[in-house]
């Protein structure tokens, strides 16, 4: 994964670029002033509480929603343009399929509607789950249905695959199986993947990039390794109410007292003083801390920052 990323293009190419993206519904802002970029070739987890705007963000990237403010570009093209349409595949949360079609007919939908269609890849994904091609969609189990939806998405050979909560209603076994399919296909074809999920452990397994949204804006964005390295989990003795004096100069994401101990997730800014036991947090610990403290100043790694010059364009 150094410079050339399969047919996803060069590593520096942006799969998604959002500039001040915002969406207001009748009940208020779902997403506000969202700016980030997702470099091509990454498998990126999109994390946020319910109603944080994950589906809204995805919807705008795949032309199901029009932004109220700002712009979003997919490989430099506007969503809905022929170019963006051809290169993007989207799997909606409810995984819609024509219920009266057979599996083979669903694959034919992909073949008929896409100039670029890989029947072999699609058939292999279906076959590896032992889903009969002649079965009607309405007779399939939830896992089989998701597998067919995956086959339809991957058969398009997209450069960007957007998956909205693809695993939410599946049992652990099927989930694990489909995660392997996803990882294998994405690695083989250099597909950029944007996947939203509440299952943080799943994301830890498959993602090398992460975007966290909360309170309508981006709180974390960047490589998983870099984001983890930027945080330290500190454990120390409790000295009183409120945030510990020693931590004042660092960015404290979250500090929690339990009994005589204080556990704090911080973004260290300089050397640590005091008697603390420092650990590297897990991805799950970082994510939970950010979800619980949506007011933490955002941390955007350099690769996820948008160039202010292109923002003006």
């Amino acid at each position: 994964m150094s410079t050339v990323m399969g047919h996803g293009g060069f590593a520096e190419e942006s799969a998604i670029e959002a500039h001040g993206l915002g969406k207001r519904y009748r009940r208020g802002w779902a997403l506000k002033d969202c700016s980030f970029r997702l470099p091509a070739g990454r498998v990126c987890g999109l994390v946020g509480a319910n109603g944080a705007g994950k589906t809204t963000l995805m919807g705008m990237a795949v032309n199901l929603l029009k932004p109220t403010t700002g712009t979003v570009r997919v490989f430099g093209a506007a969503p809905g343009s022929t170019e963006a349409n051809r290169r993007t595949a989207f799997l909606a949360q409810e995984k819609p399929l024509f219920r009266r079609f057979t599996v083979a007919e669903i694959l034919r939908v992909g073949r008929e509607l896409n100039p670029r269609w890989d029947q072999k890849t699609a058939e292999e994904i279906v076959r590896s789950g032992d889903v009969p091609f002649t079965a009607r969609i309405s007779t399939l189990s939830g896992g089989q249905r998701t597998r067919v939806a995956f086959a339809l998405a991957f058969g398009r050979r997209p450069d960007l695959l957007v998956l909205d909560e693809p695993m939410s209603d599946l049992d652990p076994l099927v989930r694990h199986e489909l995660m392997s399919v996803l990882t294998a296909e994405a690695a083989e074809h250099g597909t950029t993947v944007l996947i939203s999920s509440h299952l943080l452990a799943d994301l830890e397994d498959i993602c090398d990039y992460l975007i966290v949204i909360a309170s309508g804006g981006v709180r974390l964005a960047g490589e998983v390794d870099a984001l983890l390295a930027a945080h330290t989990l500190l454990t120390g003795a409790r000295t009183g109410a409120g945030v510990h004096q020693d931590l004042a100069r660092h960015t404290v994401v979250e500090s929690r007292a339990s009994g005589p101990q204080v556990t704090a997730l911080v973004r260290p800014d300089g050397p640590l003083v005091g008697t603390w036991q420092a650990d590297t947090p897990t991805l799950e610990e970082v994510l939970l801390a950010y979800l619980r403290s949506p007011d933490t100043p955002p941390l955007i790694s350099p690769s996820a920052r948008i160039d202010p010059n292109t923002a003006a364009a």
Partner: protein
Amino acid sequence: MSTLTTSPAPARRGPLLSGLTWLVWRQHRAAFWTGLAVTATGIACFAYQRASMMEYLSGIGWPTPTSPNWSAGFETYDSRLSTTSSLLGLLMPVLVGVFLGAPLIANDLEHGTGKLVTSQAVSRSSWLARKLGMAVLVVTMCTSALSAAFGWWWGPVSKENKALYWLAGSATGPAPVALTLFTMVGGVAIGMVLRRTLLSMVVTFGFAVAVQLVWASRWLDLGHLVTVTMRDGVGNGTFPNLPEGAYDMHQSYLTGAGELLAHGTCAMETQRVINECLARNDIVGWSVDYLPPSELSPMLWTGSAILLALTVAVAVFIFWWGRKRLY
């Protein structure tokens, strides 16, 4: 993109449909086949009915019947034509609107399959255009064929009596086609806005009934009335002779001053009182407004043109809504 390998598509069987056309046909094939089958059955049925009617007519020596009360035997055939005209002009538009129009887009919006299609390499407007286009095409074909077959059945006896000419005739020519298209496209728009299949079917039913009521009460106004007056009193044999098959819309008494009085002005008990009333009001004859039979065809075409213009307006709305508000 050089590494892309695409396996050749397997050989296709069945009709040579591809792309969106295949998808729309596959998705709605039950409705389309039903429409085609009903049309074929209907045409066969009309042909059979016409044959048996012509057999009866030739049996009695029509058009110069030997027996004076031949028309009693003809009533069966007359009423079959009237019933069929209601099926074509009333029932068909309602059924097509409710069962084809309303679910056409609403079902995809309700079950998310619209998202599935528009997230393929297909634009929203081309998807809508293909759906609407194919539905309009199938409906136009079927309704035109049925209307033509019905007109062929009705043609030889159309002028036999006034009711047959105007009642059965109202479901000939372009009228059933235009009524069905307008109701169906209206149903599509309703489904698109409401996004729920069952609800849009119910609302479309209401819409279809409203269309029928407005059509039934207004289409006769599209003709040019001819007025005829007679000043031979109002007794027996004084009513003006109207052309055969003419539809008398208004009958009034005519006064010596040329004013018109309602037909019932002197509906009284005894002849003596009636005569007094006629004299008092200076009623000298009749004035009748009627539609000559030659008006039927222009009236149907004018009405259909209005309906088709409305259909186009609704279709424009559908595409506008699809671009701006679909998701």
